[in-house]
């Protein structure tokens, strides 16, 4: 019998979140972000948060909403352009920011979930990113030691999911979601389409339900696009 991870809504899914916790938040830009969980964090008014997320949303959406309310103390990200409030808080020193290379960020999340405490990577050698980190040469090339990342909660968004917590992502909305799902002490998944366990093809599942503690049916998805680029049919 598949274990049941289903909870009724975002409110119940976020039970136990507290001030000063560390959260992972999936998504790349506004693509594949857990919109319902972010709204619920805003509603709860929790503060002093450390957020691990590739980006910080835009001024009025995504993690930008938590920044507006000054709920975030520290961001761990790879790219934080497109957000004026973020830049203002960072340059004024209100917000602590740890910028790390995107591939290292992804692998640090994966490592956290996979029980690998640290790994060597060539990315960032000889730059500010390497400051204070152990350097070791492999095959004549210097690498830096990067530590795994962990989180009290990981919030992820998938396209489809079942009551056992199995997840399927759509297109490039996959991005950091499967990695962060692995690394949360409590992983909360929200999905566009929720089905009973047994309805998804086991061959097609991206995140096995073992990594997910709570799953709920998301609502009112905006799925905003940062840069609409098109070509004409003529």
């Amino acid at each position, binding site marked *: 019998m598949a274990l049941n991870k289903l909870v009724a809504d975002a409110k119940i899914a976020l039970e136990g979140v507290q001030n000063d916790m560390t959260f992972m938040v999936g998504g790349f830009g506004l*693509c594949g972000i857990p919109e319902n969980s972010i709204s619920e964090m805003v509603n709860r008014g929790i503060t002093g948060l450390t957020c691990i997320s590739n980006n910080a949303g835009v001024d009025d959406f995504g993690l930008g909403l938590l920044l507006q309310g000054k709920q975030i103390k520290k961001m761990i990200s790879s790219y934080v352009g497109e957000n004026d409030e973020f*830049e203002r808080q960072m*340059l004024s020193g209100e917000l602590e920011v740890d910028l790390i290379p*995107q*591939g290292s960020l992804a692998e640090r999340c994966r490592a956290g979930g996979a029980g690998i405490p640290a790994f060597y990577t060539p990315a960032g050698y000889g730059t*500010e990113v390497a400051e204070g980190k152990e350097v070791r040469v492999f095959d004549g090339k210097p690498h830096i030691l990067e530590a795994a990342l962990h989180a009290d909660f990981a919030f992820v968004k998938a396209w489809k999911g079942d009551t056992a917590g199995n997840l399927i992502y759509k297109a*490039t909305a996959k991005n950091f979601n499967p990695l962060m799902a692995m690394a949360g002490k409590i992983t909360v998944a929200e999905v566009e389409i929720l089905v009973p366990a047994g309805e998804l093809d086991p061959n097609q599942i991206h995140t096995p339900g073992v990594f997910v503690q709570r799953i709920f049916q998301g609502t009112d998805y905006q799925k905003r696009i940062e840069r609409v*680029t098109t070509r004409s049919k003529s």
Partner: protein
Amino acid sequence: MLSKDQIAQRIAQELQNNWYVNLGIGIPTLVANHIPEGIDVEFQSENGILGMGPFPFEGEEDADLINAGKQTITALPGATYFDSATSFAMIRGKHVQLTVLGAMEVAQNGDIANWKIPGRMVKGMGGAMDLVASAENIIVAMMHTNKRGESKLLEKCSLPLTGVNCVTRIVTNMAVLEVKDNAFYLIERAPGVSVADIEAATAGTLVVDGDVPEMKL
């Protein structure tokens, strides 16, 4: 002087058959519009797609399908989607043959700076540090000088580095240059641009070996 689109056109001549290619934001993105006849390449975008296609037709945009520049895109037949760890495994593992990216500064030893201006602009490095640390072929696409008219080809970078000893080739609005032996080697001139013009616009060591041909576009 070349336009940004012509810089992309010249870089496209460097593409080789059956290469996987990662294009950065800005001028590099334009390279996809100039793939030479008879050359098959597949584009990777580090947020998680191989087989990236052109922009969608109006009304067919999909919020779940974007590139690393957060632009809406399409997927070509045979495309795949993957998570960010897999994406950078492709990059670090040297499964992607060419990286094209922009830069604020390049040094004659191959160092590159393109992610931070202390106290002024801090957007982050995104995937650039992973890309330059691992790619075997790195082409920098940029203007030869900055908005203040200062050379972007330097003896030593003044801005925080993105990577060290990694850039092998630069295509600017004035020239094609190879980076080796701690110098910029002038390979080609843009149409109508003289060697003297390029020397004047290059702060680092420029090596001019014999007659330097004009680019063919």
